[in-house]
């Protein structure tokens, strides 16, 4: 499984570096495109973990949907030609200290806990099992998700609508 390890470290490096750029970049569009690589890397991680359907869903929803939505948000809320993007961050040093302590604590917990693990299996595809589980054991959640999506779409459309009556 040496190839597996190499691929994991490559993808992990991509994810961490691009996420760091997202967090630290002054240019918001660069941050958004760095986020694209984070999403791609996370999709790769999912596929490494044998979850091919989730990986592709990640690609579809995050890259094809949320990222485009974010980019539209950036382009609609910033004057693109005059650089009017609010750049400065607030409370950088205390935040770094607190988040660093938090991260150290998390990593400590993650490494020191004796997780109960089983031998990982790599199914050819998870689609069949996923579909069956989703529609048998989690069918109510599935339906509620559909309704939530519908409500979110209607709500978003209502919020973003131009109210012509006020003018």
């Amino acid at each position, binding site marked *: 499984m040496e190839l597996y390890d190499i691929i994991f470290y490559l993808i992990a490096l991509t994810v961490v570096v691009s*996420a760091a750029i997202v967090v630290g970049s002054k240019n918001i569009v660069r*941050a958004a495109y760095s986020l694209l690589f984070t999403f791609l890397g996370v999709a790769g991680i999912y596929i490494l973990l044998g979850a091919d359907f989730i990986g592709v869903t990640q690609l579809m929803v995050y890259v094809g949907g949320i990222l485009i939505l974010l980019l539209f948000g950036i382009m609609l809320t910033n004057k693109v030609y005059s650089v009017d993007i609010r750049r400065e961050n607030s409370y950088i040093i205390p935040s770094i200290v607190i988040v660093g302590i938090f991260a150290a604590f998390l990593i400590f917990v993650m490494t020191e806990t004796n997780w109960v693990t089983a031998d990982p299996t790599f199914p050819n595809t998870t689609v069949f099992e996923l579909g069956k589980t989703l529609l048998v054991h989690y069918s109510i959640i599935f339906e509620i998700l559909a309704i939530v999506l519908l409500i979110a779409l209607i709500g978003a459309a209502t919020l973003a609508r131009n109210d012509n009556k006020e003018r």
Partner: protein
Amino acid sequence: MAHVGLTHFLILSAILFSLGIYAIVVRKNAIMVMMGIELVLNSANINFIAFAHFGNYGISGQIVSLVVIILAAAEAAVALAIVLNLFKTYSHINVDEVNKLKE
């Protein structure tokens, strides 16, 4: 470096989570805060799928992450609508300066 196992994935997700939290805390731009939230959700998803893969719990972890992804999509749509409304009202989207509910 040891053989890649559950811990590696968990550490990766912890780093991603911390970076996301940092972005949420530090950034003023609402869209940057949204990006931070996406990072946090992604790190949570990595955890779910890593446990589903290495643990003995079947496919349920993947289903939870699917739910998270769908909710993230809904959240992004609503958040973008709110951000657009903020921009219409304040002509900026700095979350620390948005302190009035009504004009």
